[in-house]
């Protein structure tokens, strides 16, 4: 059995989907994990969530939009803090869009029109292996025949495999994206910079990049988590958004964030259309409230405000900084995941669910907002339901239990 048309990550996903499965629902009591029936697990999950004062509902990187809206209904019902993985990913990008706006396009537009492609703090050879062939410099579009018709620019702190393919590579010092982006903005606005270098780069090189960007017919800036995670966070992204906006006075330019988890874009979309906000939504007052730093999962955990958590399709124990992960381990958690992960290992209730896109149908949104229906290819193991089904069952019990 093999996989065609997929990149290395996709191939692993399909070939490995059945490895390390959570075999059955599990309830952990006093360090001991006990396999239980689905009904018992759902009862216990409902009990934990409805008893909690301020539960969190978190995750949704790797599940369907249908499951996400089921989770939001539950979260609203229990007055929870609802957050999704963009909070540690492109959340700051979304915060920046709220301030500045965003000039963007779907991936096909890049393929057809772009003659200048910039990857900034993004290494698609590793993170999105087929990106460059399908939508980037190597793609063939209506107006661009391929690599020869396009220029590739890479800006990064290391000479990544993507950088090796670049026509123009800027290796900047870590944490200087804001300064370099601002220098570019200044150049485009014809403001003289009276320094020799910015971010470890000679000013002449920066001006050269500025010329490249202004002189193209259609430029696209793809950016990664280098901008969102460094000190400066959303301000770094604002600088990038503002640069692309400013470039539109000269030529056509767009910006596209390189989203990671396969449906984090769908999580942001569903959160926004139901609550008005893309992540970090607090329902404890009976209506959606949003204030990053206050109503975001990591902050709430750090301050010890959440006393229970429902985690769906995500592994925060692995990916949150140690202090936050420790806080998460102090509270009872209910975890839905197809696989065994450190998060399922520490859960009070762990419920195995079907792999969306392999064992379960569902909608996911591509990084550029194009919605796609993921298909069911095989049946899940017997007794294993989808995230959506489990969430709705928990919801039904909770609504019966809570006042």
């Amino acid at each position: 059995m093999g996989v065609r048309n997929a990149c290395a990550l996709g191939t692993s996903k399909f070939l490995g989907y059945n490895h390390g499965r959570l075999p059955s629902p599990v309830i952990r009591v006093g360090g001991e994990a006990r396999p239980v029936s689905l009904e018992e697990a759902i009862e216990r999950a409902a009990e934990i969530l409805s008893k909690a004062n301020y539960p969190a509902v978190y995750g949704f990187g790797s599940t369907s939009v249908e499951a996400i809206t089921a989770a939001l209904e539950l979260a609203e019902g229990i007055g929870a803090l609802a957050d999704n993985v963009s909070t540690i990913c492109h959340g700051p990008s979304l915060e920046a869009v709220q301030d500045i706006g965003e000039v963007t396009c779907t991936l096909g537009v890049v393929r057809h029109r772009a003659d200048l492609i910039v990857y900034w703090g993004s290494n698609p050879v590793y993170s999105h292996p087929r990106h460059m062939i399908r939508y980037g410099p190597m793609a063939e579009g209506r107006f661009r025949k391929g690599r020869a018709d396009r220029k590739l620019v890479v800006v990064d702190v290391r000479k990544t495999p993507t950088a090796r393919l670049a026509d123009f590579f800027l290796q900047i010092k870590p944490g200087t994206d804001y300064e370099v982006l601002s220098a570019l903005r200044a150049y485009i606005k014809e403001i003289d910079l009276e320094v020799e270098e910015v971010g470890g780069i000679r000013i002449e090189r920066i001006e050269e990049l500025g010329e490249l960007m202004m002189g193209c017919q259609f430029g696209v800036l793809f950016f990664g988590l280098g901008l969102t995670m460094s000190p400066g966070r959303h301000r770094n992204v604002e600088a990038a958004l503002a640069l692309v906006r400013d470039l539109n006075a000269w030529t056509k330019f767009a910006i596209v964030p390189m989203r990671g988890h396969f449906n984090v874009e769908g999580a942001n979309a569903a959160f926004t259309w139901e609550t008005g906000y893309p992540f970090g939504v607090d329902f404890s007052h009976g209506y959606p409230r949003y204030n990053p730093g206050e109503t975001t999962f990591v902050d709430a955990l750090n301050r010890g405000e959440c006393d229970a958590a429902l985690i769906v399709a995500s592994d925060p124990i692995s990916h949150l900084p140690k202090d936050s992960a420790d806080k998460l381990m102090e509270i009872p958690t209910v975890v839905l995941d197809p696989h065994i992960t450190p998060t399922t290992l520490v859960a009070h209730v762990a419920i195995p669910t079907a792999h969306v896109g392999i064992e379960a149908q569902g909608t996911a949104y591509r990084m550029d907002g194009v919605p796609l229906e993921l298909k069911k290819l095989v049946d899940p193991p017997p007794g294993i339901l989808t995230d959506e089904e489990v969430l709705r069952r928990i919801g039904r019990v909770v609504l019966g239990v809570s006042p």
Partner: protein
Amino acid sequence: MEGKAVLIKNGYVYDPLNNIHGDRMDIAIKDGMIVEDVRESEALIIDARDMLVVPGGVDIHSHIAGSKVNLGRLMRPEDHRRDYEPRAPGKRSGVGHTVPSTFATGYRYARMGYTTVFEPASPPLKQRHTHHELNEIPILDKACFPLVGDNWFVLDYLSRGDVEGCAAYIAWLLEATKGYALKIVNPGGIEAWGWGRNVASLDDQVPYFRITPREILRGLCRVNRLLRLPHTIHVHANGIGMPGNYRLVIETMEAVRDLEGCHGKPIIHITHCQFNSYGGESWLTLTSEAETVAKYVNRNSYVTIDLGQPIFADATTMTADGPFQYSLHLLTGAKWANADVEAETSAGIVPIRFRKRNRTNAIQWAIGLELALLIKDPWRVYLTTDHPNAGPFTAYPRVIAWLMSRRAREATMKGLHPMAMKRCILPSLDREYDFSEMVIITRAGTAKALGLKEKGHLGIGAHGDVAIYPLNPKSLDPSKDYKALRKGLRRTAYTIKGGIIVARDGTITAQPIGRTYWVKAPVRKELSQTVLKDVRARFRDYYTIQFENYALDDRHLALSAPIIVNPEV
């Protein structure tokens, strides 16, 4: 959908389609439909004495769902904080003043007595998203219009002169995206915007395509006729928002005049026409040319328009007109979002505020009202604020008050920029809409324009969608008491949808799932097969998804309601 039978007794009924203009009569609903009569013992009785009883509102153009609307929601957290819907038993929470979230949208329309709302601009590649949101909007019946004017397949077929091929493609597209009507925005200009450019006249060449805006309009108008679609082409004309653009909108209407045929029905709808009725050469010399546009509409019965009436408040502009939205950003300095969609269309969003003391805004306000007051046939002009572009839909009662009361207009005119009214004729217009006309431009006329035979009226066989307002049309003088009129129109005493009471004095009492209308236009088999073969072959040349993943099924709609038509081809 069906509940107990309902009998609405003793209300003052306005049902202009059936020639009822304020008669005191009963309305009976059974199994979700208006019937001749029901037995009182078997029905829920509603005492509508001294109240205004009208069909549920039908909004022909309101941006409520889809990727552009959602990007607008994302961009407006400051707008959401001001206005929220709390959770209640049987009711979901929500937010948003100009760009409400999905649940809030349904509740707010229902409270106001509207039961059918159409989303007028959806990018076909992302139409799955539009339906995700529409599915979640409670109560309302709805539909969406796919954007087709700059679609590469359309441009290819029309530039080759293959109107039948284009018709077959459009028929497929409507079914694949579960769309209702053909939306055309700044035809040719959006493809030009793919390069950061625009078009300035109907005869400009679209870059890299051998076609002009005129040819796109004419081609799609002919396609619309060939397919016998229930609504006309729905057109956001070139040149929107630019001083002097009234000439272009008249040219746009003129461009399809000879395609009318002899059936006498409209063949083109110009949406938010206020934004296209500007005279002058610059913002400094801006004047109203509503009179000229209205004269044209009066003389030509093949045209319908909707207003796009500005409200003096916050708004969020959002259209598929990428270049126009960019220019608005340059003009106002407000934050700007743009989202081009491969091979299809674009979208732009810029928050805005209409101010009384701003001369331009004041003139824009007057233009919308002038259009409504100068167009004689209320069946061809419809009330919209192009929500949320010129104002939120919750402001409709305010617009109605301006139309029904000269005093209301004068009160507002007092606070306007002093020079503004010199550029308009609004101060000299005496006309006041009556209740029948109000019902036509908000329900009866819009339902007719959309081809919805069971909406917008209260005749036998119509859907049991009724709005009962706490207003006595016999004792209330809307001209004098416009404040009471406005208040009464904000909140129904009862809103009934398919025979179920969904709102009562502002409280949501039920959330039935609404229908999603779409059009199925089966063309002759060989034509359809030829075109589909062609589309399949070229699909990956244009799109970055597979052909098989593009189309939606019935099961993707919460409640699919296809309307099947009988094309000429």
